[in-house]
């Protein structure tokens, strides 16, 4: 065990390469600074050590030119560090348009993941290599943090709103997924594995998962179950706006402002319908807060996003019995133990 001390984490995403490049730049600059200062201190300490008790010293009070030099010179170096860091940060904040969607819900103490195809996993994330993946994350309880060291990806998962990040894996393999924002007793067990697979393998995996329809299909069922269709129907006497093609459009509101219909807006409108009412409509929608949980919201959103003109369900279409989430054993997904066998301490499963 002691033979191999890891010194550097695996570099498995495009972001990781960029972060590491900046990291090495910082190491070089700061390392030389540290060596310079340590060298000077040691050199002075040795050279000017006290040799006689009555030694005199020159009365040097300072040197303004030197002072201004070391006040201003670091600023230029810092400017480089700032710009470089900000560049990486903004690129991580803006997912490419072709990124594949993955939805993550954190709760004490597990990660629940949904794919657009309807596949669901717990504490595991399967993704294809060399393809950008966009994560939309939220939490059911406290603040968590989705951290994949090999991708240099980290983002706080905050209850009550969506946050987004993205990455593009460059190497197949298994990587750690950590919760890195302290979230209670089993914080250290809120971990999982990211599987980066070859495309074929990934397609196989997708096919092998039992999914009751795609995420949008599941959302469609909920759309019927929650009776959304009663008002948001496609016919003329509808009492609410038609949702076809809504996602991404700019919407005019009653108060004269406009808003882009993004995830956050749709989520808010389901939970707090009165907050931003569309122009020309009465605020009659009831809230679905407490009825739809975070995972169901994601499915509803997936459905609304997928809704093309003419696809609104017919109002009298019968609602299917509600989907049951697969029952979880209290210790989380048993598969998790197989994935990283040594990770789970004996007899300490993450009991909620």
């Amino acid at each position, binding site marked *: 065990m002691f033979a191999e001390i890891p010194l550097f984490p695996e570099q498995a995403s495009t972001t990781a390469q960029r972060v590491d490049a900046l990291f090495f730049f*910082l190491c070089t600059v700061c390392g030389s600074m*540290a060596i310079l200062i340590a060298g000077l201190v040691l050199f002075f300490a040795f050279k000017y050590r006290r040799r006689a008790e009555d030694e*005199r010293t020159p009365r040097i009070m300072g040197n303004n030119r030197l002072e201004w030099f070391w006040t201003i010179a670091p600023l230029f170096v810092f400017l480089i560090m700032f710009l470089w860091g900000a560049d990486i940060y903004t690129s991580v904040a803006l997912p490419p348009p072709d990124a594949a969607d993955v939805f993550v819900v954190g709760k004490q103490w597990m990660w629940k993941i949904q794919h657009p195809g309807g596949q669901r996993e717990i504490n595991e994330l399967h993704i294809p290599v060399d393809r950008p993946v966009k994560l939309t994350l939220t939490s059911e309880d406290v603040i968590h943090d989705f951290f994949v060291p090999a991708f240099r990806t980290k983002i706080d998962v905050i209850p009550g709103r969506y946050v987004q990040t993205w990455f593009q894996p460059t190497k197949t393999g298994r990587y750690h997924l950590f919760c*890195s924002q302290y979230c209670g007793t089993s914080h250290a067990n809120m971990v999982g594995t990211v599987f980066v697979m070859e495309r074929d393998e990934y397609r196989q995996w997708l096919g092998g998962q039992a999914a009751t329809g795609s995420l949008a299909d599941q959302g469609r069922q909920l759309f019927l179950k929650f009776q959304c269709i009663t008002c948001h129907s496609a016919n003329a006497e509808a009492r609410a706006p038609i949702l076809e093609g809504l996602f991404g459009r700019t919407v005019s509101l009653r108060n004269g402002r406009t808003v882009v219909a993004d995830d956050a807006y749709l989520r808010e409108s389901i939970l707090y319908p009165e907050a931003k009412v569309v122009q020309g409509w009465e605020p009659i929608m009831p809230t679905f807060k407490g009825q739809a949980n975070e995972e169901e919201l994601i499915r509803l959103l997936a459905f609304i996003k997928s809704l093309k003109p003419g696809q609104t369900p017919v109002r009298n279409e019968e609602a299917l019995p509600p989907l049951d989430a697969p029952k979880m054993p209290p210790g989380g997904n048993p598969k998790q133990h197989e994935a990283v066998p040594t990770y789970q301490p004996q007899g300490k499963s993450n009991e909620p």
Partner: protein
Amino acid sequence: MSSAITTGFVPQAKPRPPRAPGENYLNVAIGVKSWLFTTDHKRIAILYLVTVTILFFLGGAAATVIRLNLMTPTGDLVPADTYNKLFSAHGIIMVWFFLVPVIPTVLGNFLVPMMIGARDLAFPKINLLSWYIFTIGAVITLWALIAGGVDTGWTFYTPFSSKYARTNVMPTMIGIFISGFSSILTGLNFIATMHTMRAPGLTWWRMPLFLWAHYAASVILVLATPVLAMALILVGVERAWGIGIFDPELGGDPVLFQHLFWFYSHPVVYIMVLPSMGIISEVVTCFSRKPIFGYVFIMWSSVGIAVLGFLVWAHHMFVAGQSVYSAMIFSALSYLVAVPSAIKVFNWTATLYKGSISFETPLLFALGFIALFTMGGLTGLFLAALGVDMHVHDTYFIIAHFHFIMVGGSVMGYMGGLHYWWPKMTGRMYSDFLSKLAALIIFVGFILTFLPQFVLGYLGMPRRYHVYPPEFQVLNVMSSAGASILAVGYVLPLFYLFWSLYAGKPAGPNPWGATGLEWQTPSPPPTHNFDESPIVTTGPYEYSVEESEIVH
């Protein structure tokens, strides 16, 4: 009331009572009462010294169990809940009951009046009051931590602390809230003292840098602490009545708490490290027997840190869901605050140039400070870079970074200061050999403990983990081994300093040949500090002139 006063005649200060030879602040009165009701700043400093030392070792005990637990990846020593309570207790005790108060209340209390040639602080009773407030806060917090514990971490992030934690969150917050007022009163006392009570001739530009550092730290104490107090009240209100100020379920924003919390808790780091920097300026000049290099720049950098330190708090929240634009503002400002710290390090180094350097214990600690603080400061540049922070945030990289600043910086400086002024405070010298040994052990132990944590952090080991993947074990074991060495280094001074009280040889008024008013009076000083009011005619650190020009 004398008639002279009512007519508006202003009397001279009361003459100092004549002093029996050998009478000093320690032996002027004996008994518990004479300590518990004292208003003498020097005795209050001793009260604080005892209190914070006890608290330091309690916080250290928690750290010991944490490090022992992390020896194995499966965390076999304590269960997860206990572990969480331990790191919370460690953080809470060390931050609020050791690092924040330690230098201002012990060395600051003792030295601020002496260095400015005053008889006491501006508000002696408030000074005593602040010790009582501190002690009451500490007792409440300790009680909460021992009887049940608290598992929120020292950061109390909402909504975990306000809704989900089922531990003693409330009493802990009350204890911290109360002790906050002790901080405020201490800071207020220092600022008022330095503004109005300086000895004749001691202009602002002649003040020793130790005082400037305390001035800057006091500004932070006075202006940051109230915001923490309010943040804790709001969390308390939310927790007690279930109303949502930070609860997203009820329309609140949990991130707002982080803003308030870090508005205090980032500058608080400078409360810890600024006084320490002040000590280093005193020690480096004394033992290289040279004036400080660039007094004005060091002084302004202290003030600069106090102001700029308030502009950077959200760099603790780069991945916490704040706006991208705001993150960029805070990143840029964070780089600005690195400049004043760098100025100080350069100036201390330049002070050594052409000096006459004598390697006494305080200087060893000071050189240790410069080395470790430089490391801590430089790794701060990594964290201010948005791209890198994304990866290392909330990992052991952060843990290592802030321990370098707070322990490598603040505690190292405190040890240096304690060893420097110990002869003044007690009139006795400690063991030269043992103290140098302790300095060495602490330095080596520290490096061994926290250097591996940088590597762990970049590898991705998150903080506050009770168990961890097995590949991180070797580095964790190294860190724990270092911690055991560090522990020896911290216990050692306890013995030889205590021993010196009985067996140490008398120090005399000025064992180091230092300038500064505090060395112009006997050791230990008399109750009124100076037998005659000092008058100052030169700047500080006139080590390179023929004789002291301080006139009596």
